[in-house]
């Protein structure tokens, strides 16, 4: 079980520690980012003993001890447990891990102890395996293969601590190599996980561990073909959904793991029928509404964004598969629209990346739902969305896309949007350096102008003509075409010229005459 409060506690240490911690975190973050870009993003977890503090990974005694301990074990008789404990500590050391697996018969011995009649030895043996599983060397994971059928068998047992260790061990080794993963799949890891989650559903620590193991399995590159169909056919989807609501006492951790599993399922595979049939969209969206409200208000448990993030992604991707007419029944009603708007506004300064994901979900919600679009207007959410238009890096383009979705539905909506300030916002967004913003702004402008003649007049009176004229010199051909089309077909016709002063009218008429003359 992962104790976020411990992390917080550490951060409250004195200045030196804090600075070191920050530097270490930043480096780690950089490394993770690069790993993700390389499609090599994998993490392992180490379950500490209850008596251990986090971050006190002492430098353990060197390799010699491992060899000695192993030899002692081989000859140990009834005192094996006495050697197993120090062995597990020794195996925290990476080089000791490598040494150990190279010793002849070492794994055979360990497996023997794992499956022997001494329960305490079993526990210590699995702890040794767990330490080994945390190694970054793939050879170590492969060396653990002889133990896997037993680890899987034990998942249907009743001992909770033991099961937890088995789960984390399996979760750690399965992403390490194709061979390991194939073997685990063949040995039935998916039904074993399903059974385990079912049996231990009241023990949230075990549920969390099972969620982690499943998540690791779902990260493999060919998960879509090899893993996901089996998972969807099992009882795992229902179980994952049932764990989503966080337990107030235990905390967010199990829900976090299950939500990330669901995200892996929805984002890797295009087939969402199974999940939709089980009410995944409804559940995720209603949970989002209840949790997200807290985030938007600012009172959050530390780390609730770790749960909100995968929920958002599930809703976003599930929405993309949900037929428009089924949307109403699948969703938590109009509350979702409200929540998403509040969330994106609340997160823009604290977690802009998450705000961007929220805006994406809002796009998917409004794309084909007139009801959602109408709600944005009647619940006075549009002005708040307009305030987001200055923010770049994908946020303003997504928000503008949402507004475009609204405009696209009805001419009435266009008129309302213009009244609420979208038209004047566009005169600013048309000048942005981001070409996507400019293109999208032109599209929205077109929809507004075509919906009502008053809007075109308003646009001209707000000085829109000069912007469009400037855009005709833009380097992008598509952008120029759109600006020219708008000017020629919809704005520069005689009725708007009455808005210009007399001096300019005279000029304009001469211009227009000669233009027509030369165009023939």
């Amino acid at each position, binding site marked *: 079980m992962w104790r*976020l409060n411990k992390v*917080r506690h550490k951060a409250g240490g004195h200045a030196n520690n804090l600075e070191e911690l920050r530097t270490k975190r930043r480096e780690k973050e950089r490394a*993770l*980012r690069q790993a993700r870009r390389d499609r090599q993003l994998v993490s*392992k*977890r180490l379950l500490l003993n209850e008596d251990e503090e986090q971050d006190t990974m002492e430098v353990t005694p060197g390799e010699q001890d491992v060899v000695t301990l192993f030899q002692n074990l081989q000859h140990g008789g009834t005192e094996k447990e006495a050697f197993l404990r120090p062995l597990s500590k020794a195996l925290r050391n990476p080089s000791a891990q490598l040494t150990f697996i190279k010793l002849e018969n070492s794994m055979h011995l360990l497996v023997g102890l794992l499956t022997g009649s001494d329960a305490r030895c079993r526990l210590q043996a699995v702890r040794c395996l767990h330490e080994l599983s945390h190694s970054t060397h793939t050879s170590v994971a492969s060396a653990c293969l002889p133990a896997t059928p037993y680890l899987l068998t034990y998942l249907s047992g009743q001992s909770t601590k033991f099961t937890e260790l088995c789960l984390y061990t399996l979760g750690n080794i399965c992403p390490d190599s194709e061979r390991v993963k194939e073997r685990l799949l063949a040995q039935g890891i998916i039904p074993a996980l399903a059974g385990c989650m079912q049996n231990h559903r009241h023990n949230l620590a075990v549920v969390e561990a099972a969620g982690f193991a499943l998540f690791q399995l779902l990260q493999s590159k060919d998960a879509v073909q090899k893993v996901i169909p089996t998972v969807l056919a099992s009882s795992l989807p229902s179980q994952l959904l049932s764990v989503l609501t966080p337990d107030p006492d235990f905390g967010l951790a199990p829900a976090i793991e299950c939500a990330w599993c669901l*995200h*892996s399922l929805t*984002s890797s595979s295009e087939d969402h029928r199974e999940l939709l049939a089980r009410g995944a969209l409804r559940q995720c969206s209603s949970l989002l509404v209840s949790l997200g409200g807290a985030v938007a208000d600012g009172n959050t448990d530390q*780390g609730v964004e*770790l749960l909100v993030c*995968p929920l958002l*992604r599930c809703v*976003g*991707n599930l*929405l*993309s598969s949900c*037929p*428009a007419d089924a949307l109403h029944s699948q969703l938590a009603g109009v509350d979702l629209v409200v929540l998403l708007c509040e969330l994106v506004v609340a997160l*823009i300064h*604290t977690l*802009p990346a998450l705000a*961007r994901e929220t805006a994406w979900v809002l*796009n998917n919600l*409004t*794309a*084909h739902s*007139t009801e959602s679009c109408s709600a944005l207007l009647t619940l006075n959410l549009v002005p708040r969305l307009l305030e987001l238009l200055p*923010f*770049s*890096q994908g946020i*303003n383009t*997504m928000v503008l896309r949402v507004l*475009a*979705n609204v405009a*696209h*539905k009805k001419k*009435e909506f266009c008129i309302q949007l213009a009244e609420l300030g979208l038209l004047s916002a566009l005169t600013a967004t048309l*000048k*942005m*350096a*981001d070409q*996507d913003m*400019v293109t999208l702004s*032109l599209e929205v402008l*077109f929809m507004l102008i075509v919906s009502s003649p008053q809007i075109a007049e308003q646009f001209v009176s707000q000085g829109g003509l*000069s912007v469009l*004229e*400037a855009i*005709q010199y*833009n380097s992008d051909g598509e952008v120029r075409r*759109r600006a020219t*089309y708008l000017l020629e077909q919809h704005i520069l016709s005689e009725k708007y010229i009455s808005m210009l002063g007399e001096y300019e009218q005279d*000029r*304009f008429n*001469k*211009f227009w005459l*000669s*233009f027509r003359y*030369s165009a023939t």
Partner: protein
Amino acid sequence: MMLQPDLVQLMAMGGSQTHNGDEEEGFRGAAEQQEEGNPFTFNPQLLRLHRDHELFEDGDVFRHMYLQDLFISEAEEQPAPSISEFGCHISGCRAVFSSLDEYEHHYNSLHRHVCCSCRRSLPSARLLDIHIQEWHDSLFTILAQKQDMYLCLVEGCGQKFRTSQQRKDHLIRLHKYPPDYRFDKNRKEKGTREASREQRTDSAMEAADDVCRSEGVCEVICSVESNQLEQEESMETHASSEEAAPFEDFSASAQTPETNTERLKPKYSYRVPKTVCFGHGSVRGFRGQRGRRK
């Protein structure tokens, strides 16, 4: 940019979904647009994001920070959102601004009152008018031989003079203008066409340089090849001696690809003749054409 449709990971499902019965009032897809040649193509799109999508990067990184016990929920660690910049549209002008005011000021100062013929930028509509008349209007040149045509630059004064020098003296004496007032440059006297092109090139270049320095024209305008200026000025002399010259030919030759890579001339649709300066405050920019339309 993340959401370009050609990204492999991004799948959009648009159009195939049934609309909610408001088809009469909404916008149809581009294919069904009533007007031909309508370039607008927006349709609401469902965006499905694959797990490896760029948009998910930050969230995934936080997830793994959490798995590795490095997660901190404190806001201090998160980066602030970035604000969009504004960018000048004029192709070749790469100016970028952090506020709308800066953008407006840039545009109004450098691109708004631009003479179509010689690309010089003037600070106001009135001075642009006067410039065009005096530099590019052949009718003006003819009339100026017989009457006072050079208008005082000070608005409201209204006095006219036979030569630009006289006007300049007037500006200095009466209105206390500095002798080197930047917006009252003389148009260099043109020799006959037989005069060496190099000379004219030089003077044209000089004029351009002066413009660059004194009139604060942006880089794009300064980079106009001397060829082009020369050709345009020779177009002037042509216009006064010939009737309705076919300018299209000249324009075409002036716009051979080799001469100018940083071309200011936009590529118009076929319906817009090249000689019409459609932008830069089109209503006013048109002024430069008046004298040619004979």
